[in-house]
């Protein structure tokens, strides 16, 4: 790769690696695994860098690499099993630490989702991507994104109850 390209790539890594790590962490729920994932995705981006004529596409390319690699790793290593479907612990009485408890439950419930569903939720609600952008990042159809998000939210509701403040309702309707 030309020195100028390498300098541009280094600049991209420096500017965006923190954000990419955070998204990767939400997808895999593990700091070390997220670092491995980002390293792998950035390596793929480096290889593809000369043909990324619009460097503005680099982040989309890396995000796609993170998502598809995470899905591939999880499926390959069979880490995507449903860890638990039992009800969450008693939600206790209302108090000042309610939000902390609720946050912990939601996090646990998110990690219990199959990896494709979790990736769809992260891309839609953390990265704030459109359904079309999410589909591109996941390498699937928009209809698949809708169904994955819907299935994820349904599972979260089953685990966490029908708290309208907690989970979006409108995405439970799938229009394919």
């Amino acid at each position, binding site marked *: 790769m030309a020195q100028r390209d*390498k300098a541009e790539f280094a600049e991209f890594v420096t500017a965006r690696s923190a954000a990419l790590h*955070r998204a990767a962490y939400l997808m895999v729920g593990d700091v070390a695994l997220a670092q491995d994932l980002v390293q792998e995705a950035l390596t793929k981006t480096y290889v593809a860098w000369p043909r990324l004529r619009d460097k503005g596409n680099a982040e989309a390319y890396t995000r796609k690499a993170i998502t598809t690699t995470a899905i591939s790793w999880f499926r390959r290593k069979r880490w995507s099993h449903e860890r638990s479907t039992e009800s969450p612990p008693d939600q206790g009485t209302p108090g000042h630490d309610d939000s902390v408890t609720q946050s912990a439950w939601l996090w646990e419930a998110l990690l219990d989702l199959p990896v494709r569903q979790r990736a769809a939720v992260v891309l839609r609600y953390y990265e704030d991507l459109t359904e079309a952008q999410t589909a591109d990042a996941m390498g699937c159809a928009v209809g698949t994104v809708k169904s994955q998000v819907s299935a994820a939210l349904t599972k979260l509701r089953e685990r966490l109850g029908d708290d309208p403040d907690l989970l979006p309702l409108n995405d439970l309707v799938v229009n394919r």
Partner: protein
Amino acid sequence: MTEKLKTLLHDRAETVDFDVPDLDALVRAGDRRIRRRGLVGLTSVAAVAVVGALAAGSLTGDGSGPGRGQTPVANDPGTHAAIAWTTGSVLHEGGTTRDLGHPVDAFVRTAAGYVFASKGDVYETTPTGVQRIGEIDLRHPHLVSDPGGTLAGWVQRGTREYVVHDLATDVTSVERVAPQTDDTSMSQFVAIDGSTAYWHEDDGIAAHDLATGRSTALDPGGSVQNWLIDVRDGVLALYGDDGVRVGRSYDASRPLGEVMPSSGVLSPDATYYAPDDETLSVLDVASGRDVTPALDGYFFSTGYEWLSRDTIAVIALERSEDDPLTLLTCTISTGDCTVAVDAAGSYPHVQLPVGDPLGG
């Protein structure tokens, strides 16, 4: 819509700190991958050798062997095609050299001659000269061919057409216009096997019958999770979530052991598969058994082209990536490897018949 889920995700993401990636390690890993990809090509299909002398002879109408200077190949495991490589504009093959008149950026072998890319143009070799037959991406030329047949293909620069050229008839046909793509697209002309062309698009892998012009989806509903690595004698090598799969159809494919590298080459009759790895590896497709010939003394080695049903061409580096390339032939049935070319050249001047520029 509530923002609570979003808030949770953002709060959770902010709780962890990450080190800035080791840029040097990343670049080293990327450079290694570029070199490997350059060696066998992401699609690898161009790297498979001639099927056999009988097929080649009938295609060229020359009973004594393939035409246009191609080294004959017999079904006898003891006979195989000669290793071919280029340095600049010079083609080296079987102890002879030939100046093609244009510096070679990438090239492929067919039973009727070679097709090569040079500075955005595509050329074919003929017994008497070199003829321009098309245009190709200037920076990243990518050629495919059936080494046992007379067809080569590429995506035409500018028009983005998938084109196929028959070296036996000198006819170039436009098969399809490649879809408009962005930089993240996975679209690529992947392979030609017999009379079928294969391309990978964002919605899956298509098999295109060159005789009828009909295309069929290999993996309906497929995605970037499935990548066609190679096709030989109707057998597909695919890369998916569980590594490499081999079979006559997507549905009938099955995992080939624990092979994880995402490129490799099938032997002409698909008996063997050589993954593109750091060290030479050859597997029996039917059993998954490791049948790798003995090859010691190199820090990097990988098979890149089958020279017969039993012999594979291997590229090797002795100590570092700065060393000149050593080219060897390894025979599966005997388990032996022999140095064919001790110093073929160094990156990026040397090219091998794999369809992509060596060294990225």
